[in-house]
């Protein structure tokens, strides 16, 4: 579904990703872990197409299409979703109106007619129940005055509405208390299927107790330095990232 080869990218002339290789197939959940500054958020931004980042080398194919050639909106319409670490606020635009626009723009891209207002509201209610979303949040302005937890849950709700092929969760667990973490994870788990895939970016192993990954990759200095199963995350939790750093230094020595 997603194949990243030798990806080099950076911002303002500074290299951050130094040759990422990653293959993701439908039905898989990949966790990407790593210390601060390893390039985790850069990777999600580059995949989503944030224009401050420049790709200097490598390729990314999404369902056989050259992802790097596509505009950010086309990437989304092709089924790539990013749950933001810091979701933005848009005053005066209700959550409902925003999602209706997004859903209908994506439908248009796929050659489908816009959804009727009543159908849309019904669809929205279903998904709200599905991710246990508080109904009052949909009539409020997009993320405006939402608590940190509400914003993150709103991201998961949007993901449920847009049903992406590949969802990237960028530190969705940061700033969440244990109850919010459980709600968000439940939402993700319910959305897991054979057809879609997830990339879960996190600093801590805690989230992976709830969303159990098929693969765990450790990102360090812009490269994936170690890959394994969910066990690797537990090992990291015990030994810390210094263990990986030390291992790398012995290899290099």
């Amino acid at each position, binding site marked *: 579904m997603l194949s990243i080869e030798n990806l080099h990218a950076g911002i303002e002339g500074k290299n951050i990703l130094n040759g990422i290789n990653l293959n993701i197939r439908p039905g898989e959940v990949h966790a990407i872990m790593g210390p601060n500054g390893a390039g985790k958020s850069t990777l999600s931004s580059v995949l*989503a*197409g*944030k*224009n401050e980042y420049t790709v200097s080398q490598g390729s990314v194919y999404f369902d056989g299409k050259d992802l790097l050639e596509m*505009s*950010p*909106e086309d*990437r*989304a*319409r092709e089924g790539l*979703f*990013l749950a*933001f670490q810091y*979701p*933005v606020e*848009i*005053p*005066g*635009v209700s959550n409902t*109106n*925003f*999602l209706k*626009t*997004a859903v209908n*723009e*994506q439908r248009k*891209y796929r050659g489908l007619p816009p959804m009727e207002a009543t159908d849309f509201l019904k669809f929205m209610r279903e998904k709200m129940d599905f991710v246990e979303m508080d109904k009052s949040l949909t009539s409020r*302005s997009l993320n405006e005055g939402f608590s940190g937890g509400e914003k993150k849950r709103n991201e998961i709700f*949007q993901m449920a509405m*847009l049903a992406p092929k590949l969802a990237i969760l960028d530190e969705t667990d940061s700033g969440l208390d244990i109850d919010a973490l459980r709600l968000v994870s439940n939402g993700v788990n319910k959305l897991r299927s054979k057809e879609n895939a997830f990339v879960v970016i996190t600093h801590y192993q805690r989230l992976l107790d709830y969303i159990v990954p098929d693969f765990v990759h450790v990102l360090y200095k812009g490269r994936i330095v170690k890959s394994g199963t969910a066990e690797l995350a537990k090992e990291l939790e015990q030994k810390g990232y210094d263990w990986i750093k030390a291992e790398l230094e012995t290899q290099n020595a």
Partner: protein
Amino acid sequence: MTEASNIIDQVVSQEYQYGFSTAIEMETAPIGLSEDIVRFISAKKNEPEWMLNYRLKAYKHWLTMEEPNWQNFNYPPIDFQNIIYYAAPKEKKKLNSLDEVDPELLKTFEKLGISLTEQKRLTGVAVDAVFDSVSIATTFKDQLKEKGVIFCSMSEAVHEHPELVKQYLGSVVPYTDNYFAALNAAVFSDGSFVYIPKGVRCPMELSTYFRINAENTGQFERTLIIADDHSYVSYLEGCTAPMRDENQLHAAVVELVAHTHAEIKYSTVQNWYPGDKDGKGGIYNFVTKRGTCEGDYAKISWTQVETGSAITWKYPSCVLKGNHSNGEFFSVAVTNNAQLADTGTKMIHLGSHTKSRIVSKGISAGKSHNTYRGLVKVAAKATDARNYTQCDSMLIGDRSGAHTFPYIEVANSSAVVEHEASTSKIGEDQIFYCNQRGIGTEEAIGLIVNGFCKEVLNQLPMEFAVEAQKLLAVSLEGSVG
């Protein structure tokens, strides 16, 4: 940044779509302004002597005045001798019905999306169409007449309802009020006249559509709306002009009078030609609009969506004379490229328990500047007056400016005056967030801007709210980064 500002530039540089001109035989006054020109205009309109005398007094007063210079922008001096003060499509004979209107003119209005043939009109909207200096046609006149509503051109009103015109013309905005109001009183050519009799709720929206066509011509229309006791009217004006390299002056005067328990709702969708992206050409929109709540419990509500003009300079105001009277001002002003806007309102509280509410939304893109200027004045006798002002500015890109000048003068200690202001910027982050959900950049800007203006757009009559939303999106096309 560069890519983002390119997107902004594209959005902002969208072509003005009403920029065509109509080739039609015109009758114009000689260029320039003099007593003779004032007499010429009056004679052309076959006016009674009282009207001519009013004009001449205004003209003489204008000669003693100086152009004001307190506004927050500069413009090159206007050469008042280089303007044509009267231009009208040449009439072959007197028109008896719409069928006899020059088809070129009908076509022009069709092209603007204004159909004058009544069966094609949106149901529930009567239109008066003003082309350069004269009113071309007024629709639904007969239906309105049944209710006693008078809706006609100003020239017609001078002849057919002289007592009303004499009583009210200049009663809200006297020719001594300001430089441009004096000029208008001397040379105004046409405009709309509305009278709603006691107890009548006007059965349809009334609308005037102003079109400047001729070159070097100024447009000086005059609108007078009177709502008698316990009546209601909703009125909408729209305006466009061809694209021309020189600046054209539009100095209109609008007067509203609301008597006891009467309500006037006045909405404007202003889309005069704004000039090109370097600021060449465009309309100078220097307009005086004021309403008086003459009686108790009267209400006047101004709603404006200002997207056009090279320079907009106007403050639709309410004089709240009647006790318990109510004034409202809802405004969206969008400036793009090199446009300038200095707009806002004045709420003058004279009666007791008077209320006013101001909601102003300014959006500046390109290298434009958008100024809100507002006065809330509570007189000594106005006990328990209340005002609430909300003034929000949005900046698009990093070359535009937003300015706010609120003035508050309170002479009665029981008054409650609130002012809230905010400034925000459409961020690249907001746009990227929308993009990431599959929403393209232009739709994203439209969504964000319409969200920002929602409170004001909600005030517009339904038929026009949709139009206004589209207009906002078009005006800002190419503007974000």
